[in-house]
């Protein structure tokens, strides 16, 4: 890669409307933060991808705008008018179909993209559903919903939220936790600290990696499900789908699956203690540290083609398979 930037020659980028602008203090006290709210609608007829870079605060992206328009709300906060005046939001549209929205702070005569804590800018960006979105924050939350061309979200310390998205979803995070729900597309999630909560995912694959935190997944309908954490627990609830491959691994935490259907599956499991299961396993045999077995419920429908492969591994924890939850739903979280 040589890093050549897409041609920047202009796409019509106009300030179509500026509404509801104004600034005010949050409270009566002189020390209360100052707020400024700006709302604009910009034309973006040729927009294919929207990149939002806001290290100064939060980003909320909604795929609800009319085709050809991007609606931006920028809420700025600072303790003094001088500091408020140094927070900027830029919008740039390129002929390539790329739209860039970024927030900066003026420091020493130069605008920079820097994380701020007490001061900052929060962005709410409504885009047409069919544009791809990439967004990055530092300490602020980042969320995306209603998109139909996928999303890539990155944050250092904010929470990540994804819901109702078609297309691939990619996340990168240091800490803060992730909730990803109702995605029809491949999912690739990566986090260092925090909890992951995955629900109702239906792409070709789900790949979720966490270092120091737990992963709870429910209703995953992908052909390949790979959930890996180093120190946390893994819980998977839902129907095991014929032909799918489930690979759940924790080094130090427990790994538990709670199948809600009767699908037969092949099991490979490794655990620090004997596998804790209340389902009947047959053809059990040891293969080094691994237990190999088959699960065939009396009510299991005849399997056509390849059965599901379920691999469960915990080096220091317990692997368990439950048909019916023995604990309340709240305890499963």
């Amino acid at each position, binding site marked *: *890669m*040589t*890093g*050549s*930037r*897409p*041609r*920047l*020659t*202009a796409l*019509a*980028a106009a*300030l179509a409307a500026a509404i509801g602008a*104004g*600034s005010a203090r949050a409270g009566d006290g002189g020390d209360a933060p*100052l707020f400024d709210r700006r709302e*604009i609608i910009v034309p973006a007829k040729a927009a294919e991808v929207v*990149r939002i*870079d806001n290290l100064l605060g939060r980003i909320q992206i909604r795929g609800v705008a009319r085709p050809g328009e991007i609606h931006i709300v920028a809420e*700025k906060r600072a303790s003094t*008018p*001088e*500091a*408020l*005046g*140094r*927070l*900027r*939001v*830029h*919008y*740039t549209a*390129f002929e390539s179909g*790329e739209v*860039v929205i970024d927030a900066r*702070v003026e*420091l*020493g*005569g*130069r605008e*920079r*993209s*820097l*994380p*701020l804590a*007490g001061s900052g800018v929060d962005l709410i960006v409504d885009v047409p559903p069919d544009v791809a979105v*990439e967004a*990055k924050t*530092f300490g602020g939350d980042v969320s995306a919903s209603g998109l139909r061309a996928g999303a890539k979200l990155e944050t*250092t*310390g904010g929470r990540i939220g994804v819901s109702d998205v078609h297309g691939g979803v990619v996340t990168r995070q*240091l800490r803060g936790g992730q909730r990803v729900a109702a995605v029809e597309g491949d999912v690739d999630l990566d986090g*260092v*600290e925090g909890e992951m909560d995955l629900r109702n995912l239906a792409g070709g694959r789900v790949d979720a*990696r966490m*270092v120091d935190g737990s992963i709870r997944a429910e209703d995953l309908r992908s052909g390949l499900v790979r959930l890996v954490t*180093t*120190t946390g627990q893994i819980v998977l609830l839902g129907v095991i789908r014929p032909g799918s491959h489930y690979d759940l691994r924790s*080094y130090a935490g427990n790994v538990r699956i709670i199948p809600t259907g009767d699908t037969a599956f092949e099991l490979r499991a490794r655990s620090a203690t004997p596998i804790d299961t209340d389902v009947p396993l047959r053809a059990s045999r040891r293969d080094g540290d691994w237990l190999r077995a088959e699960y065939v419920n009396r009510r299991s429908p005849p399997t056509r083609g390849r059965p599901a492969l379920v691999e469960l591994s915990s*080096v220091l924890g317990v692997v368990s398979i439950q048909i019916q939850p023995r604990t309340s739903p709240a305890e499963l979280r």
Partner: protein
Amino acid sequence: MAGACKVFATERLSAFVDGELSANETAAVRAHAATCEHCTTAIADLRALVVNASALGEPEPPPTLWASIEGALDRAPRWSWLSIGNWRPFSVGALAGAAAVALLMFALPALHRSGSRLPAAPPGAEAVATASTAIDPLLNEAEAEFAEAAAAYERSIAKLRALLEREEARWSPHERSRMAERLARLDDSIARSRELARRTPGDSAGNEQLFAAYQQKIAFLAAAVHRGGEAGEWDKLGAHGR
């Protein structure tokens, strides 16, 4: 120093230093620099150039400036009038002027009220501006955020290191030695990136490179811990761990 690297041209590295690349390009340069000594050194040199230039009474544009400006003008949106008020061609950043052409700013009512529109930095003002940022509360906020994130990375590394020690006890001296060698290389990358970030307070690109180095070590340690549970498997890890 490693031999010359042709993956990124100097102009792109300069744009990286100035924070003028797109998010994708920035990530690509950062990822590459984490493993390329030549580019890491080149980036350090470019940063030093910017810092040194800002301390001069009449800063000279860096050799890549005109090529970058020409390139930027060629790429500039037709609607560049929208940002003309913000164009400061010889500001502290080597390429700040070139990139500002493409920017549209949402002006603040507070700015208009107070009449405190920021003037273009005159030649020679950079040294003063740099000095003033040292006590700027917003810069302090940024540095605190960077420090907090670095501490979080360090905590995760310490946890993983403790887990890995448990596995290492089962390894041969040769395996332990090779692991130590790899970790030393990753630590060296972190140390170099930390030094680069430390040189310029509020340097986003420098801190991003530092965080990329942390991420690389975390990925490697996590993969080594998992594979260490499968005796001797860690040695099959690639350069990026996972």
